[in-house]
């Protein structure tokens, strides 16, 4: 079985996110990191490999993004991927969700994976739909937010929480599965793995190499235009108490609650 894991570079959680006023796009400068949710997808791939119920021949990390995204791939490889593919092309900049999913699907098509794994959401764009876009382009079934994944013959038995409780779904491969962060506890990479990551094969491909139709990507190829940004209605800021002396803190909380007749 060949597993491709989609990964993404996101601004470090500590970096304040904002919109670049001149481009109208998310300002993605500053310290970057591998999307923390993606580490669960890599871990899920590793556990399939180590579980021994299926033979996992290869785990390939795939990303789309500017040059700096290579670091997310190195991190993915240090966590267990065997090699990585970097789709990078100027024409892809400004792609919306649908265009990004299309471009990623084209990069994946070339790999013919049996299973595509990805994280439940990206830490920056607050998007949890990319898996469903990718899947339909690849003509594969998909399920998102999966918190349990078991091998069941030539299929996977998956569990996830949906609107009415927990669903169990059996999906025959090939398939695209996004995993929730409750699925596993990602391991820390060993020092050796971190050092070795840069030596693992990394292939950089451009849009043409994977057969992307330029008319369907980038800002011009996107069907959604997010031009304007506005501020939400202002909300009065709440009161903040720093707990230095817990007895005093508790007194303040109780007073606050009493004032509002909540006790």
């Amino acid at each position, binding site marked *: 079985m060949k597993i491709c894991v989609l990964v993404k570079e996101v601004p470090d959680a500590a970096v304040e996110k904002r919109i670049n006023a001149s481009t109208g796009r998310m300002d993605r400068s500053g310290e970057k990191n591998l999307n923390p949710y993606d580490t669960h997808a890599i871990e899920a791939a590793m556990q399939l490999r180590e579980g021994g119920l299926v033979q996992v021949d290869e785990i390939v990390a795939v990303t789309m993004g500017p040059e700096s995204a290579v670091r997310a791939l190195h991190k993915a490889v240090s966590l267990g991927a065997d090699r990585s593919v970097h789709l990078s092309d100027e024409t892809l900049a400004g792609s919306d969700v649908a265009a990004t*999913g299309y471009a990623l699907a084209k990069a994946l098509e070339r790999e013919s994976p049996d299973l595509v794994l990805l994280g439940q959401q990206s830490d920056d764009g607050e*998007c949890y739909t990319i898996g*469903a876009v990718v899947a339909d382009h690849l003509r594969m079934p*998909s399920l*998102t937010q999966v918190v349990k994944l078991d091998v069941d013959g030539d299929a996977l038995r998956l569990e996830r929480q949906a609107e009415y409780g927990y669903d169990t779904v*059996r999906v025959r491969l090939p398939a695209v599965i996004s995993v929730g962060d409750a699925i596993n506890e990602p391991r820390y990479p060993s020092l050796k793995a971190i050092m070795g990551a840069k030596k693992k094969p990394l292939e950089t491909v451009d849009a043409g190499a994977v057969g992307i139709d330029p008319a369907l990507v980038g800002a011009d190829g996107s069907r959604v235009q997010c031009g304007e940004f506005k501020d939400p209605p202002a909300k009065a800021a709440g009161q903040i108490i720093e707990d230095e002396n817990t007895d005093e803190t508790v007194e303040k909380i109780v007073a606050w609650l009493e004032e509002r007749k909540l006790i």
Partner: protein
Amino acid sequence: MSDVLVYVLHYEGAFNKNSLGAVSEGVARAAEVGGACDAVVVGGTDLSDELCRTLGRYGARRVFRAEGPEGLAQPVVDVMDRVIAEHGHRYAIFGGGLLGFEIGAGLAARRQAGVTMEVTAVRADGDELVAERPILGDSKISVSHYRGGLGIIIGRINAFEVRESGSADAEVVDVAVEYSPWSRQAEMVSRGEQRGADVDIEGADVLVAGGRGLGKAEGFELAEALAAAFGGNSAVAATRAVVDAGWYPYAAQIGQTGKTVSPKLYLAAGISGAIQHKVGMQSSENIVAINKDANAPIFEFSDLGIVGDLNKILPKLTEAIRARKAG
């Protein structure tokens, strides 16, 4: 002509409230751009003529009904693709939840359409609809304009109000769909399993909500003790993170795939305040949060925020409230 198509989710013979909100929204917005709103339902025999017709109450014109598996996204994509190809709807609207996100995204791929998720408002701009979506932890609102034949709008839960604007029955139209091979690769084994005890959080006046910050399942004892100290109509609620981890029952979960609550007091302990949690509790009358991280998003929408360790604060707070009640 700008017709709108809305997917209506159902479970055990009843329509989903967020879907009904989406129909209401679709009806109101379609009218502004000179169109009408139709609905799509996919499922088994519980989708009776009688049930489907009731969508007319919310203003739906027609209900396209297809027999197919329930609770899976891609069969619905197949059906909507078919209906749109035939009838030329210009917008598709989904209520919040989970399935709507998957269907909307799949449909965007299938029909090369634009998609916006977590939409909190839709409005007419000339003869087009535009969608507003909060981004960056709700600190900005981004406005989506659509290009091309189809625009897909996926609402945030509780964004669209349910309005009974119609009186006539909706017309029920059966559609026969050959499902795509990849839709048929997925099969629902069991749906809607309730994990853990059946607790009621919707009726409570005081909710002590616990998150991953409680550290372990036993950590919920701190939350339960505090709720008990408040006494009366109080209960303990939870985030998805802890429900998925098996620390607390699903019935106590607040948020996008859980309950929507609006108690007099919501007190969060060890909850970061993710959007998917916030959407289920933001209409609470008073919001108090205890979190050791001063940058936790929950402080952005708390009336009272306490930056500190819940393990130190909760026991003393419980004591103090107990004492107050006794005295």
